[in-house]
Each structure stands twice: as structure tokens, then as C-alpha cells.
């Protein structure tokens, strides 16, 4: 009779996989530490944005003045009839486009296509810059129309505080993401990762952050602009 051989090369999956990953004396997550850390950071960021959105829900419910109609406040006219939410729609499409180029950059990174990875990351960063520029335009327009964190001519006073906090914090994340993307993109271009074992894991980690920024926008778009 032969001894029972424990096959250590096969990792169990499902529920037994969870207990296996957490209880055995080894790294819990089968991913590089940088990626696990980015996920945990994004989890904490999820709670921050949730707090902002829940606070917005709470002040909007409590306001006795009518809430400004986002469809009208954020309408923009190009000579003719104002088109509702048009700038926000364009910003949404720009962010989705940038998420697509980022996903392609991650894919090209794993294919060791150095130049394609660089250009796709650069394109993602430029789309991010155009997003922030449009947001700056939106802020300028609203401030000129008299929207302040404490009052606005269109309805409940809490609108301004919610708007500037939520979109401002998101815009700051996009700005930081652009800087992060450019730093990593130029390192890719210089061959920094090629010399370190041709490992492009960092592109995926940067991508996680960028996709998260897009993900947050999905919720802001639904709850703040469409609700």
C-alpha cells in the first residue's frame, strides 16, 4: 500500500479554498503584495466615498426646500435649446474611454509590449486631464451662477456643499491618478520594469486605481446627477 501523497500543487477552490488561504501558514492572498495593498486601499476609499454619498442622501432627505433639478442646473446650451446634462454625459464617456485604454495597457504590459503599454497609459492620462478640465469648467460656471457651499439660487442650500465635496474629492482622485499614471508610464518607457525581470504587475496595480475612479463616477453619476 502506498502512502497518501498530499498534492501541494493543487490549490483548493470555493469555501475550502477560503479556509485554506486564511488558515495555512502562508500569504493569505495569492496575489503580489502590491496588488493586495492596492485593493485594501481601494476598500478604505470605498468607505470614504460611501460616507459622502450617504451624507448627501441624508441632507437631501432632510431639506425642506426643493432640491435643485440636476437636469436643469447642469444643462448647457450651444446656441440653441439647452441640452440637459450634456457636459456630464461627455465626461462620463471620456472616463469610460479612459478605462478601456487602461485595460488595454494592462493587457499589453503582460504581453511585454513596452511601447504600446506606454502610449496606452499616456492616452489614459490625457483623457483624465480632459475630464478634470471639464470639471473645472463646470465648477466655474456654477460658481458664476451663484452656487456656494452654503447657498444657491436654484433650491435647497445643501446642494452646493454636496456638489463641491463629492465632485471635488472625485476630481482630486482623478488628478492624483493622472500623476500616478504618468510616473509609471514614463518608467515603462525608460525600461525600468524591463530591467527588473520584465515584470509589468505595476501596470495592473495602477489600472486598479484608475478603474476605481471610474467606478466611483458610475455611482456619482447615478445618485447625484440622475436622481
Amino acid at each position, binding site marked *: 500500500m502506498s502512502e497518501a501523497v498530499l498534492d501541494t500543487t493543487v*490549490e483548493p*477552490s470555493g469555501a475550502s*479554498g477560503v479556509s485554506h*488561504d486564511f488558515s495555512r501558514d502562508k500569504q*493569505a*492572498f*495569492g*496575489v*503580489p503584495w502590491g496588488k*493586495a495593498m492596492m*485593493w*485594501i486601499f481601494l*476598500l478604505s476609499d*470605498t*468607505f470614504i466615498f*460611501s*460616507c459622502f454619498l450617504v451624507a448627501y*442622501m*441624508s*441632507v*437631501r*432627505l*432632510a431639506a*425642506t*426646500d*426643493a432640491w*435643485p433639478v440636476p*437636469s*436643469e442646473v447642469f*444643462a*448647457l*446650451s450651444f446656441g440653441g435649446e*439647452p441640452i*440637459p*446634462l450634456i457636459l456630464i*454625459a461627455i465626461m*462620463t*464617456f471620456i472616463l*469610460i474611454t479612459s*478605462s*478601456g485604454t487602461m*485595460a*488595454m495597457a494592462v*493587457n499589453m504590459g*503582460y504581453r511585454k509590449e513596452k511601447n504600446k503599454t506606454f502610449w496606452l497609459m499616456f492616452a489614459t492620462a490625457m483623457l483624465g486631464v480632459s475630464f478634470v478640465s471639464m470639471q473645472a469648467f463646470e465648477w466655474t460656471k456654477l460658481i458664476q*451662477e451663484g452656487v456656494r457651499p452654503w447657498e444657491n*439660487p*436654484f433650491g*435647497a442650500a445643501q446642494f452646493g456643499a454636496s456638489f463641491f465635496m463629492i465632485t471635488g474629492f472625485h476630481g482630486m482622485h482623478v488628478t492624483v491618478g493622472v500623476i500616478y499614471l504618468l510616473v509609471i508610464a514614463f518608467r515603462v518607457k525608460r525600461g525600468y520594469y524591463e530591467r527588473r525581470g520584465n515584470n*509589468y*504587475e505595476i501596470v495592473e496595480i495602477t489600472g*486598479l486605481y484608475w*478603474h*476605481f475612479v471610474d*467606478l466611483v463616477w*458610475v455611482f456619482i*453619476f*447615478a445618485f447625484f*446627477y*440622475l436622481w
Partner: protein
Amino acid sequence: MASEEGQQHPIKIYLTVWVLLFVLSFFSYMVDYLNVQGMLRWALILTFMFLKAGFIIAIFMHMKWERLALKLAILGPPVAILVLIAMMAAEGNYIEETRLEYYGESTFVPEVPEHH
């Protein structure tokens, strides 16, 4: 499955999700543009929102291919936010009722936004 080489998947799946996100965003914009109101509006907005969020997390962020331990550690805790939402919704409604009771109905007349 994640390999030594990290997350490598065919380009086709990214392009499909990319197109889907465009279509879903277009639909949610149409909800506003066509001025859909009432329960149908909230239902459509939330459906498109969750679909978009799901595709971004599952495919673009590769969560679909990660092990269950990582999925649970990252996607589990945000469920607690539902409790916060429930509590703050009750609180918000209560504050509104109190304001109406003590200060009465709002007399604020909003301006209609002008567009230049």
C-alpha cells in the same frame, strides 16, 4: 486563473465590456434625456448603475478571476454600508419631519437656471 504571469486574458473580452459600458451609459443618459419619471426612473438608473459597476469590477479589475478569499475580503465589508444607508435614511426623514413641524413649509422660491 491567475498564473505566474498575472492576469492575461483575450483582448476580445475587454473590448466587449468596453462597448457594453458605452451602451449602458448611453441608456442611463437617455433615462434623463427622455425625462422618464417615477419608479421606472429609479429602477432603470439603479439597474444600469449596478450592471456598469459589476462589469468594471469583474472584468476590468479582474475580480472574476481572483480567488474567493480575496473576493470576500474586498467585496464583503462594503455590505456594512447598507446598514449606514438604512440608519441615515431614517434619520434624514425624521429631521425633515421635525423641521416641518417647527419651522413650517418652505417659502423659498427657486430661480430657474439660465443658460448662456
